[in-house]
């Protein structure tokens, strides 16, 4: 399911969905058809959890599209701190900083730390443009990671996989996972039951949205082939700074908003890049995401919350 509180379900329902409270209405999208189910609070508490996704904070960005990207990240964290129920953890799907500068990483850590949540990161291309091409990122966030920063972990029966598709990019191509990471993924999934819910997150979308803008991953089909036998796969990406969803078999893809600046929709502008909008419209195009898992429900409930007041 994917619901934006501005279109789709109303805000009250979105919040119920998000905080998993009382007899909250859980909206899911099964085979592309939205449906809702009534839940008892006890049941929900026992069998589900929620986590957050933030993306593309671009700390250090100060151009007209948003002269204060650190400020809007602070607002995003403010929304998270104000949530009535504490999420299990947070993922950040990359472009933490704009230019991989130590001060930008420091500022991001300082603000994101205020959420007091475990944060699982994957790098965006903006996070690995220091002199050492990614060492700064790995020193800070890659302690338990393999290769360029990929890893997996489990939460209450759900298997989470953080992938890196922003290194060793090839001329003319899009995002890239590479043979080493695909081999690691095959090994990681080996022996897992097909009923294990899987959440995959990476910076660049793992499905092709706009090849002319590089919005896709060259070898994502090989990763998806490894995931094909699983009954519930949720793919969370950033990079394009706007909401997009797609359902393909058992796999549901979602791209997230940025906390820094919007980008144009494919086909609506000559090029991607920071999109200048009237100042009053900016926060409606930025946001954070809450994702809720409920045992026995195939599709995770995804709620996007904009930074609009």
């Amino acid at each position, binding site marked *: 399911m994917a619901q934006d509180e501005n279109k789709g379900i109303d805000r009250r329902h979105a919040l119920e969905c998000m905080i998993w409270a009382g007899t909250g209405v859980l909206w899911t999208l099964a085979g592309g058809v939205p449906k809702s189910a009534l839940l008892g609070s006890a049941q929900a508490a026992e069998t589900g959890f929620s986590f957050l996704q933030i993306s593309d904070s671009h700390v250090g960005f100060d*151009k007209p599209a948003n002269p204060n990207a650190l400020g809007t990240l602070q607002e995003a964290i403010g929304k998270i701190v104000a949530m009535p129920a504490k999420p299990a953890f947070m993922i950040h799907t990359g472009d933490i900083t704009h230019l991989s500068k130590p001060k930008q990483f420091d500022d991001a850590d300082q603000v994101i730390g205020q959420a007091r949540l475990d944060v699982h990161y994957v790098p965006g291309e903006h996070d690995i443009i220091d002199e050492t091409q990614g060492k700064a990122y790995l020193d800070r966030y890659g302690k338990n990671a393999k290769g360029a920063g990929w890893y997996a972990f489990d939460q209450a029966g759900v298997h989470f996989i953080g992938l890196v598709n922003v290194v060793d990019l090839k001329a003319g191509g899009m995002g890239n996972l590479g043979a080493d990471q695909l081999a690691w993924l095959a090994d990681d999934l080996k022996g897992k039951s097909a009923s294990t819910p899987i959440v995959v997150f990476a910076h660049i979308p793992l499905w092709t949205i706009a090849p002319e*803008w590089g919005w896709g991953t060259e070898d994502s089909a090989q990763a998806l082939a490894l995931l094909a036998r699983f009954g519930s796969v949720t793919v969370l990406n950033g990079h394009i700074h706007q909401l997009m969803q797609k359902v393909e078999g058992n796999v549901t893809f979602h791209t997230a908003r940025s906390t820094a600046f919007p980008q144009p929709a494919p086909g609506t502008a000559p090029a991607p890049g920071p999109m200048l909008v009237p100042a009053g419209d900016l926060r409606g195009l930025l946001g954070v995401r809450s994702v809720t898992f409920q045992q026995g429900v195939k599709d995770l409930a995804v709620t996007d919350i904009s930074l609009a007041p």
Partner: protein
Amino acid sequence: MIRSFDKRWRRARMGALAIGAALALFFCQMLLAQADDANISIDNFAFAPAVLTVKPGATVTFENHDDIPHLVVAVDGKYRSKALDTNDKFSIAFDKPGEYAYFCGLHPHMKGKIIVAP
């Protein structure tokens, strides 16, 4: 007295000539450099011109005009710029004739080619 003045005058004239020659050489080199060097502008996630022809010895300067950093990488791996933030420049000289393909290391759909021909 007269002789020594004459000597000094000659020395001064020689010096002026030498400075003049050096200046002429300097301006000639500058003119030559201007004739051979070229710029590639990065605007809206594209290199312009996407195909550039220069003479051997030319220096090519990339300048990024986008609000997003770009990074120039040779397809053959011979050079790689640092990340170019808005208005940052990167220069590289091409001595040998040939075709040199490059792309953006951050946005690899951005491609270009430098042709070095006498």
